Each structure stands twice: as structure tokens, then as C-alpha cells.
């Protein structure tokens, strides 16, 4: 909402109804319901395609089970209590792994973004580590952290931390330098500027980084539960490989995707509430 009457509302609706051509114009705003509908139609179409090829027997169930079979597998896991148990174990590992990474990455990223010396000292190291394949680190993590939950959490930490730190550094660097200068002219010390100007100014960006990186932690779940795990959503999928239980694999993959989506949505909602002042102005 713009409070200034002299500012025309952005994306103001035109008087005439939008024609079909208007839906595919460069950067053109489209009606909200069309936007939402488009996002529903594509998954439904893929689902229909999936159902079609399996119902017509075009692929063998070993390669692609029908949507019905996958849902039935989901129902079986849910009613036997396996699903909830797996989800609880995996969510716990993800939460701890991601939180541990975040607790370290936020201060380190903020320091790197503000002090060139710290950036110079850490950036080359982090840039190298972030390209190392996490799967290759499994033997080392077992050696260091054993075969319990801790090893899984270490893998999730390693998969998240390095990218997260560099992104937070960028979030901090992207704030307007004049904000810092304004703080200096108002007589604030470096520490006060860091805490009361740089941090709040960078916080919407940092929150977005946290949202994106929790998604990456989810994608590392199967890697984390690859070795020496008895439970977990990722473990269930790896076990199913042995028995060629394709329906379990597909269900597990979709379910992890679904939980990731829920996490993302929760972060977005919380972000909108936390940073009301940052809401884009709408007409």
C-alpha cells in the first residue's frame, strides 16, 4: 500500500479485460488467479501423464509404478507407523544439522562481509571446500563421528555450512554503503553500526539464504543416511533399492520433496511476518 497519493499504484489493472496475447508479454503482470492456476495445472498434467503411461501398461511397474501403487505404499507406511517414525528421525537430523551450520555460518558470514581481513583469510578455504563432494567425506565422518546420529548431522552440516557462509557474506556486502556512512555521521561506533544498522539491513537477505539453504539440507538427507542408518526417510529409499521396491523409492522421494516444500512455505510466511517493513509496495 502506498501512502502517497501522488505515486501511481504499480501494476494497476487496465480497464479492458486481458486478452490471451497479454498473458505472454515481457514482464507483464497477469491476473493473480491465472498465475495460481498455471502452477496447479503443470503438476496435474504431469500426474495425468504418469497415470496414463502406467495405466496403459507402457512401462513396467518395476521401472515406474502407478500413482495408485505409490499412494498405497504411502498409506501402508503411514498406517504401520513407519512414516512418522522415519520422518521424525530425519527431521530431527535436518534440524540439528542445519541449525548447527546456521549458528556458525551467520556470524562467520557477517564478519567476512564486513572485515576484508577475515574475508581474505577464510574465503579461499571455504571456496575450495564447497566444491568437495560430500559423499566422498562419508568415510572420514564415520571415522570422526562414529555411526550414530552425529555422523548424519555432520554430513548435513558439511553440505550446508560452506555455501551458506558465502551467501550470508554476500547478503551483508549487498547493503548500501551509504547506510553505514549515515550511521557514522550520526556518531555511532563500528560495533553499533554492525549490530544496529548492518545486521537489520541485511536480515531479509539472510533470512532468504536460510530458507534456500534449509532446502539444500533436505537434499543432502539421502547422502546423510547412506551408511549405518536403521531409520529415516533417506534410509528407507536406500533399503528399497535392495528389494527393487520402486514404489517405496518413488513415495519416499516425493515425500521428502513435499516436506521440503512445507519448510520453504513456512520460512516464506515467517519472513513476511518478521520483515513487514520490507513488504513490496502494492497498488
Amino acid at each position, binding site marked *: *500500500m*502506498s*501512502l*502517497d497519493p*501522488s*505515486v501511481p499504484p504499480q501494476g494497476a489493472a487496465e480497464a479492458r479485460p486481458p486478452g490471451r496475447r497479454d498473458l505472454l508479454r515481457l514482464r507483464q503482470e497477469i491476473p493473480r488467479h491465472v498465475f495460481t492456476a498455471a502452477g496447479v495445472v503443470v503438476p496435474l498434467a504431469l500426474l495425468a501423464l504418469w497415470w496414463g503411461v502406467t495405466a496403459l501398461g507402457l512401462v513396467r511397474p518395476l521401472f515406474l509404478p502407478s500413482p495408485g501403487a505409490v499412494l498405497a505404499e504411502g498409506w501402508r507406511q503411514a498406517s504401520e507407523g513407519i512414516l512418522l517414525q522415519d520422518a521424525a528421525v530425519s527431521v530431527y537430523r535436518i534440524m540439528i544439522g542445519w541449525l548447527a551450520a546456521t549458528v556458525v555460518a551467520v556470524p562467520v558470514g557477517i564478519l567476512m562481509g564486513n572485515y576484508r581481513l577475515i574475508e581474505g583469510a577464510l574465503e579461499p578455504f571455504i571456496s575450495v571446500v564447497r566444491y568437495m563432494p560430500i559423499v566422498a567425506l562419508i568415510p572420514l565422518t564415520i571415522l570422526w563421528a562414529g555411526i550414530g546420529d552425529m555422523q548424519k548431522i555432520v554430513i548435513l552440516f558439511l553440505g550446508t555450512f560452506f555455501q551458506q557462509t558465502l551467501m550470508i557474506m554476500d547478503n551483508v556486502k549487498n547493503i*548500501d554503503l*551509504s*547506510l553505514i*556512512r*549515515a550511521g*557514522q*555521521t*550520526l*556518531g*555511532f561506533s563500528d560495533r553499533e553500526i554492525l549490530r544496529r*544498522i548492518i545486521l*537489520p*539491513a541485511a*536480515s531479509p537477505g539472510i533470512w532468504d539464504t536460510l530458507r534456500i539453504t534449509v532446502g539444500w539440507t533436505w537434499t543432502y538427507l539421502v547422502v546423510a543416511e547412506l551408511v549405518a542408518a536403521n531409520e529415516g526417510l533417506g534410509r528407507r529409499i536406500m533399503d528399497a533399492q535392495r528389494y527393487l521396491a520402486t514404489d517405496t523409492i518413488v513415495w519416499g522421494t516425493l515425500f521428502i520433496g513435499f516436506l521440503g516444500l512445507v519448510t520453504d512455505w513456512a520460512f516464506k510466511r515467517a519472513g513476511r511476518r518478521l*520483515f*513487514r*517493513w*520490507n*513488504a*513490496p*509496495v502494492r497498488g
Partner: protein
Amino acid sequence: MTTDPRAKVVISGLRKTFEVDGAALTAIERIDLSIPAQQFVSIVGTSGCGKSTLLNMVGGLDRPSGGRILIDGAPVTGPGRDRGFVFQSYTLFEWMTVSGNIRFALEKSALPRSEKEALVGHFIEAVGLRGFENAYPKQLSGGMRQRVAIARALVYRPSILLMDEPFGALDAQTRGMMQELLLKVWEEHRVTVLFVTHDVDEAIFLADRVIILASRPGRVKRDIAVDLPRPRAFDLVTEPRFMALKREILAEIREETLKVMAADLSAGRG
């Protein structure tokens, strides 16, 4: 040029060089200026003449490479609350409301709470933002944001106001309104103003004195007194004396621009 040691701001032998790719680049060769208290001074010149650099050094945000700047006889060693700064970009703290932004500037002041609130209220009124105290900057237009920035730079009662193209990002109509508003506020709070701008009309309309800087390296090319009566109204810009000053200043700037272009062409950068 001699400087008057009793002036509010005394700039003598000021020099600034930057290091660009290992080579020293002289932004300001030598500037000598004295600015009496409560004078409104506009600084104009082609891009790259060092006007913003000069302002930053007076503000204590950049260090001179040589020479010195005295304010009330004391050398500038860094930013200080005797100087208020308004930047070209909207440097508001977006997580604070309009009154929050202005109040934040008073945090380092020892005034009692009630007096601070009175000052915040007074300056919100002065820049015409009554009714918008609780709005967030993102809800405001560019002109309104700069009003907040002006209030924030004045609320702690500095004796010098430094403005770096504060209206450069505004449309022409809003800019005109803001110039009148600034003059109105300034008539009431007579601080010394250093106002950097590209806009010659703006420079003359606002100031007692227009300093034209020469470029590469920067130095004072002309120092022109604006002998126009105050208070000034918007139609001043059509009066013969205004036009004569404008013609004179435009000619000086044009000469500088041509020199810079010729230098660029011969250096193969044009």
C-alpha cells in the same frame, strides 16, 4: 587564494589522490575555501571534478591526502555530530518508521527524553510529514524519503549540513517542491550548507554562493556570489538576474566539459 581563519569552515591546500590499479589518480589538486557561518554554498562541476569527494572529506568520511579542513578552528578527524549529511540515495533505515529514523539520530544526544520527542515532532512538522510518523520508508515516495533524511540530518542540531545531490533522483516537479521546502526549513534553522549538485538552476536558486570546480584534477574554477534577495520563490528562475547568473555558470561548466571531452578523445577513451 587566501582563506579567512575565522570562517566556519576553512579548507586550505586540500588535496586528494586515489590509487587506481597501482597508479595514483589526483581527484583534487588543491582547494582553498573559507565558508562563513550560516552561508548556503552550492558546489557544481562536471562529473569527476571531485565535488562529492570534497563533501565526504568535510564530513569526515574520507581522509584528505594533503592540506586540512578546519571547522570552528578545529581540524576534521572523522565524522561528527556538528555536521549532518544527506546522501543522494535514500539512506533511510527501512526497518524503522519515519519517526524511528529521526529519533535514531538523537540517540547519541544527552537530551532528556521529552525534549528529544519534541525535537522529533518539530522536524516531522517542518518537513511536512505530519500524519506519516508511523509509515515505513518503503511506503513513501522518493521525495518523502528525502524529507525524512533532511529531518534526520537536522534533528540533532548540527551547525553544518552537507548535501550530496540530495534531489538528484527525484523527478523535476518533486525536485522543485523539495528545493522550496529546503529553503523554508533553512530560513528557520540557519545552518551552514554545502550543497553538491549537477543542476545549475538548483545551485543558484538555493545558494548565497556557487563554487564551480574544474576537473581532473579538481580545483576551484570560479567562486560566484548569488546576489538574489531572500526569501526566494519558485518564479525567481525567470528573472533577468537569475538568467544572467545561469548563463555565466553554464558557460564555465561547458568550457570544463569540453576540456574533459577533448582529453578523453586524445586518450582514446571517448
